[in-house]
């Protein structure tokens, strides 16, 4: 592997990146160039835009980061795969694949699973077709443009029609070293009637190094396909995280999408689910747990484009210290979305008087025969519960951990994969701090 000089994301760094990737198909290089041009001509989003009003990125300086490969593969331990028999796994560091495995019988059935950089070369047609769908717009904003021009990491999963993958697939990506960046694209395509479970997690090698993740996730489910998708974001609190994520759920297909958002100094994630065929179904689960000065902003969007679809979203956030969460959720029902059944709920648990939670549910409905409801609550830890637990011999921290776990139980109950429940519980437990005396 040649060491390329990528000092930040200037033109020479971009050219160096292209030079290092001459094996890529031509359509891809051209696409990178187009997006780079757009990137160069566009300004960062600013606080005057409604979407960014609550998320201040003036302190984000792209030139402090570089997408240079890591000196060595990362080794921070995975949580989601603990005790799970996997059908395939991918490990990567700073957006470069370190390891990629897939059970031979799955490969024989035509399943493609690997680091996107490699798959783009080996299965150029499949990747080109997936990209051409434009599930996530490469020109949505400057982050999307940067990602589309400079991505190196990410996972590609394609499951042919009718193939059921019983064992979960796992992907872990790590960030290591000061100023490290991971620009990634994840693409999941399930053919008609295909089934799979994909567990993804991201984390930092240490608690101190500043990092950047700029990623996209694109999911396409064919008729009657079923996907369980878990993404656990557990970076250190000095990582900037910008992402555009979208799933298109086809006729009679089912998606269960669980997000664990624990890390990042600042996260700004757009997570969209589009129900594009009749009778499609999506369940979205979100767990946010923050500390310090973390700022996590998740914009969710449930788009009912067809009739008889169901979507059910539950986001729960617990906040410590001076941290802040912003959840903006929208249910949009097109005129064609008759007989929609859509639900969204956001609950916030305030563990500190200095924390702040913004909750902005929204409904935009153009069909008249629908059932759309949403709810939101914010509250605090009940002192009586803490005293009760402490009277039983628990420390204050243990008591808080129990209460936080209880608060998240409603989401955990919806997660059908044991290892994910346990991993989330463990990751949250590690971040629980002693609650100051009231």
């Amino acid at each position, binding site marked *: 592997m040649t060491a390329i000089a990528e000092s930040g994301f200037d033109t020479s760094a971009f050219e160096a990146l292209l030079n290092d990737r001459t094996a890529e198909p031509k359509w891809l290089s051209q696409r990178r160039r187009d997006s780079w041009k757009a990137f160069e001509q566009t300004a960062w989003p600013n606080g005057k835009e*409604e979407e960014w009003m609550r998320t201040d990125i003036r302190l984000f300086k792209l030139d402090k980061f570089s997408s240079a490969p890591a000196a060595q593969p990362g080794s921070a331990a995975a949580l989601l795969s603990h005790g799970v028999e996997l059908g395939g796994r991918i490990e990567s560091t700073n957006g470069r694949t370190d390891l990629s495995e897939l059970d031979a019988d799955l490969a024989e059935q035509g399943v493609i699973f690997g680091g996107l950089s490699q798959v783009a070369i080996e299965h150029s047609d499949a990747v080109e077709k997936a990209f051409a769908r434009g599930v996530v717009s490469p020109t949505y904003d400057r982050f999307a443009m940067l990602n589309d021009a400079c991505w190196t990491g990410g996972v590609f999963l394609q499951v042919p029609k009718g193939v059921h993958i019983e064992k979960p697939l796992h992907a872990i990506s790590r960030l290591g070293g000061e100023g490290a960046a991971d620009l990634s694209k994840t693409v999941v395509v399930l053919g008609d009637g295909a089934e799979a479970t994909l567990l993804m997690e991201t984390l930092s090698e240490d608690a101190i190094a500043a990092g950047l993740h700029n990623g996209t996730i694109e999911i396409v489910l064919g008729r009657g396909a079923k996907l369980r998708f878990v993404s656990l974001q557990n970076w250190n609190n000095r990582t900037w995280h910008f992402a555009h994520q979208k799933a298109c759920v086809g006729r009679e297909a089912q998606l269960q999408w669980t997000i664990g958002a624990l890390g990042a100094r600042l996260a700004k994630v757009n997570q969209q689910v589009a129900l594009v065929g009749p009778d499609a179904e999506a369940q979205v689960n979100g767990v946010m747990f923050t500390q310090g000065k973390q700022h996590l902003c998740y914009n969710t969007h449930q788009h009912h484009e067809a009739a008889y679809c169901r979507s059910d979203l539950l986001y729960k956030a617990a906040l410590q210290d001076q941290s802040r969460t912003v959840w903006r959720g929208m249910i949009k029902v097109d*005129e064609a979305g*008759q007989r929609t059944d859509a639900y969204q709920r956001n609950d*916030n648990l*305030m*563990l*500190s*008087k*200095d*924390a*702040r*939670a*913004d*909750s*902005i*549910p*929204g*409904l*935009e*409905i*153009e*069909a*008249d*025969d*629908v*059932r*759309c*409801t*949403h*709810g*939101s*609550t*914010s*509250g*605090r*830890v009940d002192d009586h519960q803490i005293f009760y637990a402490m009277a039983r011999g628990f420390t204050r921290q243990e008591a808080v951990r129990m209460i936080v776990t209880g608060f998240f139980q409603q989401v955990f109950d919806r997660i059908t994969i044991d290892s994910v429940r346990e991993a989330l519980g463990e990751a949250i437990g590690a971040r629980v701090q002693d609650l100051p005396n009231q």
Partner: protein
Amino acid sequence: MATDTMPSAEDLNATDEAVLSDINKYDFITQTTGVFKARKGINADIVRQISEMKGEPQWMLDFRLRSLEIFESKPMPKWGGAINIDFDDIYYYLKPTDHQGKTWEDVPQEIKETFDRLGIPEAERKYLAGVKAQFESEVVYGSLQEDLAEKGVIFTDTDTAVREHPELLREYFGKIIPPEDNKFAALNSAVWSGGSFIYVPPGVKIEFPLQAYFRINAESMGQFERTLIIVDEGAEIHYVEGCTAPMYSTESLHSAVVEIIVKKNGRCRYTTIQNWANNIYNLVTKRAMAYQDALMEWIDGNLGSQLTMKYPAVYMMEPGARGEILSIAFSSKGQHQDAGAKLVHCAPNTSGRIISKSISKNGGRSSYRGLCKVEEGATGAKSNVVCDALILDPQSRSDTYPYIEVEEQQVQIEHEASVSRIGEEQLFYLMSRGLSEAEASSMIVSGFIEPLVKELPMEYAVEMNRLIELQMEGSVG
């Protein structure tokens, strides 16, 4: 310089063109002879002219000019509804008559006819305390029962208050809603005219609702009334504002500012029934500050206008303050009601409630946009927000945008919303009892908005039901 500001003969006759339209009780035109009419458009000269016509003190002129600068520097809002206003094609000031009417007999005949059709005199004869009817920009008729005056209640138009109660007015004017707040508050601050000024002294409880009707009756004419209500400690008031307007073919703009202070243990209820013509932009800023143990209630019904953007707010400034907001929106063809409410908890143990109900039909769009905010330090704050929307046909649209911002831990904020259509079972049941589908739908809608109607004074409840019936006509089948 002063000669430049004199109106021309053309200006004086500009409103005389009769406009033919289908007449019904809420859709009619009365001819008026404007005594003075400013030119269209807005600039510093127009603002100076308005101030000079009113004989205002320097500080008010300075306030207007500063506000004009702010108006010009602020961009149009990019959210809410589509606003397509040519600010240069609007009259910012129109004075319909030379004198304030002292008695009913003094009010010009054509204005009386307009009011007769709205039923104001009858309402007054019955049991109203005072009527402030705003016809175009100035208050032309006002009466206030003498016993209220004896108790020290001040109820006058805001222009008069600038002259007669300058110190009291200046203490609060533009302090609750500064001109910087938003583009339309700035516009109002620059060109405001009319509106009510009310002061209720400590402990005085006004038993009956004070009413005012506002109307737009000149094509392309803006209406920029400015209301300030001060409810002193332990005092109580219920203020009712109702609007109906004739139909016109070009856009008109209504942009009011309403500021309210409710001091310790005071109570204020402010009721609006907005039924502007369907070509009017209704962009209004309403905000109240409630102090210790005070109660502020907004009851806000929006039926008319092309686009309404209005979010009455209660800032709960001291412990025990309460805010209650009831918002009802009904939008039909070509209408967008972007209405809602704001509750801001700034002190401990404050509590608030928002109930929003909206109905969309014939391609109308109803949006609830609200804010529930708990500032740091507002421990024990409680808020409850419930939004229900009814959509009557597939062409219509309903949106809900309930913002919630919590900066404290010991709080309880709840929000629930639902959107649905009229249940077929309900319809079937009512129709099996012999009602037509239209009657059954109308009955269900009436039930849906009952929480608003039952809070209204009786004659308003009657009018409200009549308006709903009119809105519902032809909605089914």
